[in-house]
C-alpha cells in the first residue's frame, strides 16, 4: 500500500518554527511568495495613479503627491526591491522548472546572485527615477 504511513509524516511548510531551521532556501522561498503578493498590492496603487493621470491635473497631483509622500516613497521603495527580487528569483524558479540548478552549491550561489542583482537593479532604478 502506498499510504501505510498516512497521517504520520511531516508536511514541510507547516513545520516552520517548531522543527524547521530557517535557511537560505526556505527563507528565499517564502520571500518569493511575499514579494509576489506585495507587488500585486502596489500594482493596485499604480492603477490608481494611472486613473488619476487620465482624469485631471488636480486628481493627478493628489495621487502623485500621495505616492511620493514619505510613506508613499517607503511603499514604492519596498515594492521596487520586491519586484527586482521576485524578477531574479523568478528566473531561478524557471531554471529549476527546467530541471537545472538543483545542486546545493548552485542553489547557494544563485541565491546570493539573486540578492546582489536585486540590490544593484534597485539602485539603478532609483538613480533613473531621481535623475533620469
Amino acid at each position, binding site marked *: *500500500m*502506498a*499510504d501505510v504511513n498516512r497521517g504520520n509524516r511531516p508536511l514541510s*511548510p507547516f513545520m516552520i518554527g517548531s522543527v524547521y531551521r530557517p535557511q537560505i532556501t526556505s527563507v528565499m522561498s517564502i520571500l518569493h*511568495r511575499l514579494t*509576489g*503578493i506585495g*507587488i*500585486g498590492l502596489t*500594482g*493596485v496603487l*499604480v*492603477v490608481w*495613479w*494611472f*486613473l488619476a*493621470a*487620465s482624469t*485631471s*491635473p488636480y486628481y*493627478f*497631483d493628489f495621487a*502623485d503627491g500621495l*505616492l*511620493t509622500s514619505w510613506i508613499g516613497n517607503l511603499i*514604492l521603495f519596498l515594492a521596487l526591491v520586491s*519586484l527586482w527580487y521576485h*524578477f531574479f528569483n*523568478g*528566473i531561478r*524558479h*524557471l531554471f529549476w*522548472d527546467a530541471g537545472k540548478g538543483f545542486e546545493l552549491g548552485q542553489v547557494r550561489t544563485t541565491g546570493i546572485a539573486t540578492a546582489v542583482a536585486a540590490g544593484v537593479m534597485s539602485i539603478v*532604478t*532609483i538613480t*533613473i*527615477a531621481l535623475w*533620469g
Partner: protein
Amino acid sequence: MGFRTDRQRVHGLGTSHTGAHHWWSQRLTAVGMLILVPFFLFPFVRALGTDFETVREIYGHPFNAVVAMLTLAVGFLHLQQGLQVVIEDYVHDKPVLVAMLVANVVLCAAFAMTGIFAVAKIAFA
C-alpha cells in the same frame, strides 16, 4: 472500493482539477513579465513624481503606452494565477475557497481593465 487502485482513489482530488495546464500557463506569464517589466519600469519611474503634462507626454508615446497596457494585462493575469495557488494552499473550506477564487479572478481582471482603460485614455488624449 477495496478493488480500486491507489491511483484511482486519488484521481480528481486536486483542488482545481486542471493543475498541469495552470502550472504551464503560470510559467508563460512569468516569462512574459520577464520581458515586459524592464520596458515598463524605466519610463514609469521617470514619469512618477513629475507633473500632469510630462506624464501625458511619456504615455502619449505609443511604445510606452502599449508596453504599459501589456504589462497590466500580463501582470494581473500572473498575479491572479499566483494568488490562486496561495489561496488553494491556505483555504480548505470549500465554499470559502470557491468564493475567494471567484473574487480573485474578478478583482484582478477589474484592476487590469481599469489600468488599461486609463492608459488608453491618456494615450488617446
